[in-house]
């Protein structure tokens, strides 16, 4: 191991980490918004939108992120819509994640027994109130493990950003290997930086999960 090289590359990896995190989290935030919107559309069976949403979910769950990014970044400019690599990464991640988040929310909603909303209705709650105060909290709590898994999955998916010239962690490592051929050092740093990015998410995820579950079952 050439520790001089590692020292020299550290700032580049740090920049890449910040870029990956920034675009990753923006994309994940977008994914949450899209996922929630899609879930509500599906749950309340809003006509037309429901069919469109189902189509969107199947489209993005069954194509790789790489293909989606290629399409957004290389094909859309041909019809006059050019977006920056960073925006492309964020939108791509948001659309892919939105489809996964919607499915996770849906399974959480299906987990809530029908009797819960019936009971809420018998107490005189409106459909919206029942959803907001009775069904959704239970659904969110039971989908937490799935959501955390999605977040980690999406952060790892950032490794295909290189295709749209974003200097994410993966591309930084490949680029440095191409220029200086310090393979072992570059790959070592790559693994370390992915762990720096993802371990806290995993740990935080399990803490959140425990807390949310306490709300569900009591401590």
């Amino acid at each position, binding site marked *: *191991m050439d520790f001089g090289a590692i020292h020299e590359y550290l700032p580049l990896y740090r920049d890449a980490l910040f870029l990956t995190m920034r675009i990753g989290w923006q994309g994940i935030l977008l994914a949450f918004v899209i996922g929630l919107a899609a879930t509500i559309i599906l749950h309340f069976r809003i006509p037309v939108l429901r069919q469109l949403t189902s189509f969107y979910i199947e489209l993005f769950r069954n194509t790789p992120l790489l293909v989606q990014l290629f399409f957004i*970044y290389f094909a859309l400019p041909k019809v006059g819509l050019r977006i920056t*690599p960073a925006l492309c990464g964020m939108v791509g991640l948001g659309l892919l994640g939105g489809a996964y988040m919607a499915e996770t929310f849906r399974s959480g909603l299906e987990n809530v027994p029908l009797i819960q909303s019936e009971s809420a209705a018998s107490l005189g709650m409106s459909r919206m109130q029942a959803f907001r105060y009775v069904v959704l909290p239970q659904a969110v709590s039971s989908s937490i493990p799935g959501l955390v898994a999605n977040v980690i999955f999406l952060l790892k998916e950032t490794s295909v950003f290189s295709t749209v*010239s974003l200097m994410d962690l993966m591309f930084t490592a490949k680029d440095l290997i*191409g220029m200086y*051929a310090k*393979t*072992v050092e570059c790959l*070592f740093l790559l*693994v370390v930086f992915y762990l720096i990015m993802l371990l806290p998410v995993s740990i935080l995820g399990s803490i959140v999960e425990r807390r949310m579950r306490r709300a569900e079952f009591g401590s």
Partner: protein
Amino acid sequence: MKKQTKAALFGLTLALTSALSMTAFAGDSDKVYRTVDEIKESGTINIGVFSDKSPFGYVDENGDYQGYDVYLGNQIGKDLGVDINYVSTEAANRVEYLKTGKVDIILANFTVTPERAEEVDFALPYMNVALGVVSPDDHVITSLDQIGKDDQVIVISGTTAETYLVKNNPEIKLQKYDAYAEAKTAFENGSGVAWANDNTEVIAFANENPGYTVGIPSLGSNDTIAPAVSKGNDSLLNWLNDEIVSLGKDNFFHKDYEETLLDTYGKDYEDTLVIEGGQPAEASTEAEAAAAETEAATEAE
């Protein structure tokens, strides 16, 4: 070596502490390459070429590898009396493919540089090259000073153009791509103000695509392109050097040019580009320098 590297990577993901010792293990240099005799015995040679860099190494409409590099590859296979297995490579993978023994020879428009000569062994050169910069007709860039501080220049990761700009013009913002095809599409989409690459490549691009001009036809030093083998594979290196010298007696590389490059570059570039028998026309010392680059680089260390 391959197995060890794999094991090392596996270890890395499992536990960082154990990984530290295992990577050191993988860093040990075992013999990864195959000698000429071993290649002949196996009956197949693995040659790394580009699959998307017309007219040097590309896949034609029938799915066959074609181009200036491949033409030489075919001859090498014929003269060794073995089948050829072409392995598609990206610019940034070339050194790695040799270091891990994935291929026996890299024939992927590999420019000889001192940095690379520390990692692989170059045979005698067969082509001249410099860097070039192509830009759209309505905003031709004829000097690097014209590139504004917010403008981005497209380069391909792992090429000499990237290394040159990183080293000599660190103020220029680079937009890096993995592969030729992606860089080309991005440039056509107008994602960058210019594209820096081997001048052979940008000249070919401007010839094939109206609306683009090579504003800077020659940037940096004049370099050569040569086949490369794994570090220490003297048996294959010597065989290749003999092969290139003997092919030069039949003007093989001019024939290669006429078969593969004439349509793109025309007659004018033939003597500028082709190196016959490992001896560049203008300075024969340059070829020796290139071949001796390996030794020079190790001595310099």
